[in-house]
């Protein structure tokens, strides 16, 4: 019976492989969507799956790509990191997709990286992250720390006169790295050690009483204080609820968040939070025609005009259009051809400008600082005058300040050390 089962399993796998192989020759171009639809990350990632399906549908309405229709292949990696690698492999090997759009958490990206490298495929990663990475097969369409964190701190320092800083984050790599960078940056701006308080909490932390009270105490020292929040996901709602109830107003201690967008605010009564800030590269409130069109299409697609749009959705919008342009330019979906063609491709973003793919596989973006409004939207209160180039390697970290990334020939290196003149970090 066991043997029958094993045979069945093998037969199933082989059959699906062969179907996969066979259909790659058919008249569609397959696009993989690798976002968690269940588990802890489903809350954020499901929206991105829907956004991708919408973008693909729209592209098909415009006639597809290279004369072929696009076909979306959706899988559920279930917020389980090893499963991400398995599913990525399945998408590329079994389903034969030409590009994958997906991942949210850094760990899921780290988990699939070797797979994309080995099988030489393309991943478009749409979420702001800690940087310190540049991989040939990956395109980072979300913000690097210099496209989000540093401008936000600059704003608070210059416009609001903040002198004392609470860096509060969830204890994982993105907040750790961002806070490292910010700490170095703040110190370089002359902020004293005792004016920086760093606090880490576990994932899904829900009892914020002590921390909010600590922030209040820290903020009552007579210097203007702000909180830089890299608190992730679900923990934000109880955090803001506690903040609102404890009466911490944005005028007294503003909180600037890097992981709180429209989607997160949709679960909150924002009236007590008016004036708290977020730094992103896109807000739904952006007043452009392209954005209005995008929002309208989104509402029509999802069938609910209360659903919001957010920054990672825009990142997918940009990433998808870049891929489409690069495929057109290369005349093929072959990954090597697309990797060569995509650098320098520039497509409209939703905030009224153009974003371009840089040689380090990061993109140019405007940086916007928004204040939370009563209706759950952000109002842009400040933006960079031009576009900011995503920086794979931070200038404020010892290990990486000498590194640059350029995937164009002849350098073709993700971690070129300008001090030693060698590719591959500081060694060999």
């Amino acid at each position, binding site marked *: 019976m066991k043997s029958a089962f094993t045979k069945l399993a093998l037969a199933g796998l082989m059959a699906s492989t062969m179907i996969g192989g066979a259909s790659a020759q058919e008249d569609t171009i397959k696009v993989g969507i690798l976002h968690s639809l269940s588990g802890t990350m489903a*809350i954020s990632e499901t929206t991105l799956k829907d956004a991708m399906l919408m973008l693909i549908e729209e592209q098909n309405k415009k006639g597809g790509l290279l004369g072929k229709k696009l076909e979306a292949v959706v899988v559920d990696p279930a917020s389980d990191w090893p499963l991400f690698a398995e599913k990525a492999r399945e998408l590329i090997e079994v389903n034969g997709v030409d590009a994958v759009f997906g991942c949210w958490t850094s760990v899921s990206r780290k988990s699939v990286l070797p797979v994309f490298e080995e099988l030489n495929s393309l991943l478009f990663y749409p979420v702001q992250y800690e940087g310190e990475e540049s991989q040939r097969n990956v395109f980072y369409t979300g913000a690097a720390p210099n496209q989000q964190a540093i401008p936000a701190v600059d704003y608070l320092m210059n416009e609001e006169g903040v002198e004392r800083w609470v860096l509060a984050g969830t204890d994982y790599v993105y907040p750790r790295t961002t806070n490292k960078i910010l700490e170095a940056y703040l110190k370089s701006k002359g902020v004293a050690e005792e004016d920086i308080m760093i606090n880490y909490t576990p994932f899904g932390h829900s009892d914020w009483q002590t921390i909010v009270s600590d922030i209040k105490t820290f903020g009552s020292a*007579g210097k203007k204080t702000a909180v830089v929040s890299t608190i992730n996901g679900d923990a934000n709602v*109880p955090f803001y609820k506690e903040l609102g109830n404890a009466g911490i107003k944005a005028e007294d201690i503003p909180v600037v968040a890097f992981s709180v967008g429209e989607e997160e605010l949709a679960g909150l009564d924002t009236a007590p939070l008016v004036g708290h800030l977020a730094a992103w590269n896109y807000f739904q409130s952006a007043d452009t025609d392209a954005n209005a069109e995008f929002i309208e299409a989104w509402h029509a697609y999802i069938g609910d005009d209360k659903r919001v749009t957010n920054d990672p959705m825009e990142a997918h919008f940009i990433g998808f259009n870049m891929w489409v342009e690069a495929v057109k330019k290369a005349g093929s979906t072959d990954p090597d051809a697309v990797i060569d063609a995509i650098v320098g491709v520039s497509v409209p973003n939703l905030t009224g400008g153009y974003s371009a793919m840089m040689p380090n596989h990061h993109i140019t973006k405007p940086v916007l600082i928004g204040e939370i409004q009563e209706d759950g939207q952000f109002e842009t209160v400040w933006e960079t005058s031009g576009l900011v180039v995503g920086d794979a390697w931070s200038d404020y970290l010892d290990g990486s300040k000498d590194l640059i990334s350029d995937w164009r020939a002849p350098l073709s290196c993700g971690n070129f050390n300008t001090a030693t003149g060698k590719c591959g970090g500081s060694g060999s």
Partner: protein
Amino acid sequence: MSLMRSFLLLFSLAASLLAAPALAQSDPETLRPLINELANGKYSETEKQIGALVATGDPQVAPALEALSDGDLYVRKADGEVFIIKKAGKAYALIDPLTLETAGEAAKREMDKIKVNNKLRRVIRSALGSLTLMAPDPTVRMAAAEAVFKAKDPDSIEALDAAIAAEADDGVRKKMEEARAAAVLNSDMDEAAKLQAVSTLGTMGNRDALSLLIAVQSSSEGALRDAATSEITKIEKSIAAWDAAQNIWYGLSLGSVLLLAAIGLAITFGVMGVINMAHGEMVMIGAYVTFVVQEFIRSSAPGLFEYSLFIALPLAFLTSGLVGVAIERGVIRWLYGRPLETLLATWGISLVLQQAVRSIFGPTNREVGNPDWMSGAFEIGQMTITYNRMWIIVFAMLVFAGLMLVLKKTPFGLYTRAVTQNRRMAASMGIRTPWIDAFTFGLGSGIAGIAGVALSQIDNVSPNLGQGYIIDSFMVVVFGGVGNLWGTLVGAMTLGVVNKFLEPYAGAVLGKIFVLVFIILFIQKRPRGLFALKGRAVEA
């Protein structure tokens, strides 16, 4: 809703200002150009313009500033006239910023919002403070005094002196005196006045005073420095005591959340012996019921919003309870005698329920609002108590007491206890054990449901809600001793308080780890929990 509130405030403020004896009241029309100027340019320009308006010293400008701060001040694109607006359907109702008379309507796109940021709001608040120190409404004067306190502007001493002299309300006058002290310390007045101010702040005794005094201590010499130092020592001592009290409060609050999450489990797991992995999903269902109730109220009876939780409570109890009964009748009753398999089956059920909620309500967080009586905070001494936490503690105690009452004083409770202690004998006494099982499971699930209503006030309402509580709930029940509700109560409160006392020293993550290790070690010492039941009935 809060928009309505600020409007009411605005109008009462404006009305009171108009009724008040004119300080420097001038013709509205001379102010109008100044107000229209607000619409020009950047934040820095707006800030200057606010300064100019405040410089007139005319309280008539207050409503416009207030509206600006609330984001309700708009400019008409066509002629650059500035109005306070009020949303009326798709259009805006226009209100003259000076006379406060209605001035017609305008479509949205005809108007531009005058942008405001935190810094401007802060400027406006302190400006309004000095303008409204003499307002007839004591709450307005109180707010004004607080604003002036924060501004610490020596220029306001004169206005404060006048206001203090005229003030009838003791509380407000005290606040004004404190504001004056803060301003004095920031001025170049003589040492005697400053010493006086230091002692005023010393009696104030909170963190704000402390930070001001520390500033004095570091910038002064001699007698003033000594006075500040001695006041600082006093305040720090009292704050330390208050901090301990505050920590206990936080611990009780966390404990009551744990209690709410665990108490339903204490019944299904502790009393019935069913390892219900879907317990967290019962909590989640309760939270979603609250969401549905609030959505319904928002769309069809906005006036009832303040009572939404009371409406949600019975509905959540019923919904979760019925789901619980359905699970018991459909699955669990076939598994009696195979307790570990209930773990397996209910784990499957919990996956199904999560996915069901995800399919019906979507994967994202849903907004459950706090009614006004659940919002905000009050202070006892140096301790801040938020209303939602307070009500949750009260609620948890009520639920506990209610449950105890049901189990101890009703026939149903008696039969349940009899079934727990000896199922076969209970059946032979004529107790319909299958009904008791179903109802008990329903009761445990229903209680989880009402816990969900409470938890929706402090946490995410998402399909993952239940998962976040399930482990903690099991820890509480096991720590307290399976089958003993008192154990659950004491267990929850102990874990809450221990956690909160560890957190400031160890941080949130390590604190939690220590608590878990503590539980592991504790179980070694008392292998059956805090309140171990004795006797064969429990061992069976």
